C-alpha cells in the first residue's frame, strides 16, 4: 500500500538523519548568493577532518533574514550564523560542540525571529527543498492522507470555509466560497491553477515559498483537487524564477514517482496531474482571466467577468485559481483544524500572512505575522527600524495596485479591511519602507510607468489613460505642472479606476490617489505659482 510506503520512507529517512550529531543547514535561496561556495567549503572541511559520519551538511530554503545572508543554521542548538563566507568554514566546523563562533552569531532573541508567527514558512529554511523524505519527516503529506482517507470532499470544503481563509493573492476573496463554487459547477474535466506569476515589483513571497517548500504547495493543490473534483493542475510560474522552476519540476517528479501525484493517488480514487507553465513576463497575467488566456497559449488579455473562471475558466471548463501562499496554507488548515487556524489573526482577516519586507529598513527579508499586527510592530520590531538615521515617511503595500500608509497611521493593523480603508490593499504581500528622503511624486511616477508598460492595451481607459497619467506626473516631477493639471490628474484617475476592464487598470490609479490623499502638499509644491501662464509650456 502506498500509505505504508510513505511511512517506510519517513522512518528510514528519520533514522538516517538521526545518525548525525550535527546538522548544518545552509540557505540556498536566491536571496543568499554565494551559498554554493559555502556548501563546498563546509563539505571540504568536514571531509578533511573526517567528520562525514558526524556532520550532515544540507542546503535548505530561505530562512527569512536576507539582509544578514548568507545564513547558516547549526542543529541541535539552533545557532544561526550570519554573513557567512567560505573562509569561515574551518572555524564553524571546529566550533561544533564547543563555544559558538561569536563574531558570526545571530542572537536568537532578535525580535525579527521572536515576533513572527511562522505557519506557511514553518519549514522554510529547515528542510531541503529538493528532498521529499525531508518534507515527510517534517510532517508533510499528513494533510493529504487525512483528506483522502478520513474526509469527504464536502468535509474539506466545510473545513476551509470555517477556517475563514481568504485568498493571499491580493483581493482576499474567501477561499472556501471559491472552492465550493468550483465543486458545484457543471462541466468536466475541472482544472486547478496555482498562480505563481508574482509580478508585483518588490514582492518575493511566492518565489521564496516555491524555492523553499515546493511540496507543501503541491500538497495544498492536491487537497484542493480532491475537494473540488479537479483532475488536472497547472502551476503558472514566472520564467524569471529559474531556481523555483527547477525545484518545482523536481518536486513534481518525486511526487509522481511516489504516487503522491498522478493516477490513484496513495491508493485512493483521486487522479491528479500537475504541469508547469512558464509565464513570459507580463504583469497582467496575474489577473486570472489573462492568466488562463496565457496558459491557452494566447496574448494575456483579460476578459470581462462574469462568467467567472470558477464556472468557465481554462478551455471553458470550471477552474479553480488560487495563489501560491493560499495553497501553502491548506495543509496546516487541514491538519490543525479550522478552529486552530481561525484563532490566528482578526475576525475578518484570519490566519497569518507572509510579507516581503524591503526598502529602507534594517532587516530586509521574508516574514510571516498574524493578521492584525500593527505596521509599527512590523517596521520597528521585526524590521529593526530604518538604518542611517532616516525617518520613516510611508510604507507602501500592494505594489502598483496599492498605496502608501503614511508614518502617522503606522498603528494601523494589517488586515484586508484596514488597508482598503486607507486606499491601499493587502496585495500579495510586498511591503516597501520609504524614508523621508524619497519623493512621493517620484514613487508614484515610477508605479505609473510600470502600469503603462504592463497594460495589455485591450481597453481604452487603461491603455491611453495610464500613458496620459504618466505624462502628467512627469510634469509634476519637472515642476512644470499647473492647478489644471492636478484637476486633470484626479479626473483621469477616476476615469481609469471606474471604466477599465480588469483589476490592473481599475487599481492602477491607487498609488496616485493614495499619495494625493496623504502627501498632497508634495504635489502642490510641484505646481507653478505663476498664474499668468507665461511660463506654462506643455
Amino acid at each position: 500500500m502506498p500509505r505504508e510506503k510513505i511511512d517506510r520512507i519517513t522512518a528510514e529517512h528519520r533514522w538516517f538523519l538521526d545518525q548525525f550529531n550535527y546538522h548544518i543547514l545552509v540557505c540556498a535561496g536566491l536571496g543568499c548568493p554565494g551559498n554554493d561556495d559555502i556548501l563546498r567549503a563546509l563539505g571540504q572541511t568536514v571531509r578533511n577532518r573526517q567528520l562525514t559520519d558526524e556532520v550532515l551538511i544540507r542546503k535548505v530554503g530561505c530562512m527569512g533574514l536576507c539582509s544578514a545572508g548568507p545564513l547558516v543554521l547549526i542543529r541541535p542548538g539552533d545557532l544561526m550564523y550570519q554573513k557567512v563566507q567560505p573562509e569561515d568554514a574551518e572555524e564553524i566546523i571546529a566550533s561544533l560542540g564547543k563555544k559558538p563562533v561569536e563574531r558570526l552569531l545571530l542572537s536568537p532573541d532578535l525580535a525579527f525571529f521572536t515576533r513572527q508567527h511562522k505557519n506557511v514558512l514553518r519549514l522554510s529554511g529547515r528542510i531541503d527543498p529538493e528532498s521529499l523524505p525531508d518534507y515527510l519527516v517534517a510532517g508533510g503529506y499528513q494533510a493529504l492522507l487525512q483528506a483522502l482517507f478520513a474526509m469527504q470532499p464536502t468535509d474539506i470544503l466545510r473545513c476551509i470555509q470555517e477556517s475563514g481563509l481568504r485568498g493571499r493573492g491580493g483581493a482576499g476573496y474567501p477561499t472556501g466560497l471559491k472552492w465550493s463554487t468550483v465543486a458545484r459547477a457543471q462541466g468536466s474535466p475541472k482544472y486547478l491553477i496555482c498562480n505563481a506569476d508574482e509580478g508585483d515589483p518588490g514582492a518575493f513571497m511566492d518565489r521564496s515559498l516555491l524555492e523553499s517548500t515546493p511540496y507543501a504547495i503541491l500538497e495544498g493543490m492536491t487537497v484542493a483537487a480532491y475537494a473540488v473534483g479537479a483532475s488536472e493542475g497547472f502551476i503558472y510560474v514566472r520564467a524569471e524564477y529559474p531556481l523555483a522552476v527547477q525545484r518545482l519540476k523536481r518536486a513534481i517528479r518525486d511526487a509522481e514517482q511516489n504516487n503522491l501525484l498522478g493516477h490513484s493517488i496513495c491508493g485512493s480514487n483521486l487522479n491528479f496531474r500537475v504541469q508547469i507553465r512558464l509565464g513570459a513576463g507580463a504583469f497582467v497575467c496575474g489577473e486570472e482571466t489573462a492568466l488562463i488566456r496565457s496558459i491557452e497559449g494566447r496574448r494575456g488579455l483579460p476578459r470581462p467577468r462574469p462568467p467567472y473562471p470558477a464556472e468557465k475558466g481554462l478551455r471553458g471548463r470550471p477552474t479553480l485559481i488560487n495563489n501560491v501562499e493560499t495553497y501553502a496554507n491548506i495543509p496546516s488548515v487541514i491538519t490543525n483544524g479550522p478552529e486552530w487556524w481561525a484563532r490566528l489573526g482578526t475576525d475578518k482577516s484570519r490566519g497569518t500572512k507572509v510579507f516581503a519586507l524591503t526598502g529602507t529598513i534594517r532587516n530586509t527579508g521574508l516574514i510571516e505575522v498574524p493578521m492584525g499586527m500593527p505596521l509599527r510592530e512590523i517596521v520597528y520590531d521585526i524590521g529593526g527600524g530604518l538604518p542611517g538615521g532616516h525617518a520613516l515617511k510611508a510604507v507602501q503595500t500592494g505594489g502598483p495596485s496599492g498605496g502608501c500608509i503614511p508614518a502617522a497611521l503606522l498603528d494601523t493593523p494589517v488586515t484586508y479591511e484596514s488597508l482598503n480603508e486607507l486606499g491601499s490593499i493587502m496585495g500579495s504581500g510586498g511591503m516597501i519602507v520609504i524614508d523621508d528622503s524619497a519623493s512621493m511624486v517620484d514613487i508614484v511616477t515610477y508605479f505609473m510607468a510600470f502600469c503603462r508598460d504592463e497594460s495589455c492595451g485591450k481597453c481604452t481607459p487603461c491603455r491611453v489613460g495610464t500613458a496620459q497619467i504618466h505624462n502628467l506626473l512627469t510634469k509634476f516631477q519637472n515642476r512644470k505642472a499647473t492647478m489644471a493639471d492636478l484637476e486633470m490628474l484626479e479626473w483621469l484617475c477616476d476615469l481609469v479606476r471606474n471604466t477599465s476592464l480588469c483589476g490592473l487598470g481599475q487599481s492602477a490609479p491607487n498609488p496616485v490617489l493614495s499619495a494625493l490623499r496623504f502627501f498632497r502638499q508634495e504635489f502642490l509644491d510641484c505646481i507653478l505659482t505663476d498664474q499668468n501662464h507665461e511660463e506654462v509650456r506643455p
Partner: protein
Amino acid sequence: MPADTQQKPVDRRWQRIIQTMLRHNNQSDALIETLHTVQETYGYLDPAVLAAVADRLGIPPARVFGVATFYNHFSLKPKGDHTLVICTGTACHVRGNDQILAWVKEQYHLTPGQTSADNRLSLVEARCVGACALAPVILCDGVLTGKKGYKETTAIIEEWLGHAS
C-alpha cells in the same frame, strides 16, 4: 535553422523545439511553451523558426507574432555576447537602481532592450527578479550582485566588462 516552412530544418535545436510541441500533442495552446524553447535554444525568436512553429501548430502567423511581442521575456533580436540585467523593481528603484541604470545608459550608450553595435553588450531592464531584500540588484551574465551602492556597483560592472570577453 529553418529556411522556410516547407523545408524543415533537422538541426538539433529544431529537434528540441519539435519535442516541446510533441509533448503538447502539437496543440495550439503549446505556443508559449514552444516559444520558451525557441528562445532558450536560439537565444531569440528567429523569424524563420517562428514561421515553422506557426505552421506545425496550425496557428495563424499574426497570432504567433502577437504572442511573441506581447511578453517581455521573448526577444525578436539576438542578444549580445554579454547581458547586463538591471532590476527595476520597487525595492531596487528606491535603493538607487534608477541612477545605476542612468549611468549604464550614458556610459555604454544603450537603452534597455538594446544591444551595442559591436554586439558585445545587451542591456536588459528586469521588472523584478524577486531578490528585493538584496536591493539594488544587477545580474552580470546571470550572476547576481546586490546590496552594493552606486559607486561599488558601477565599479563592478566596469570590471566585469573589462574582464569579460
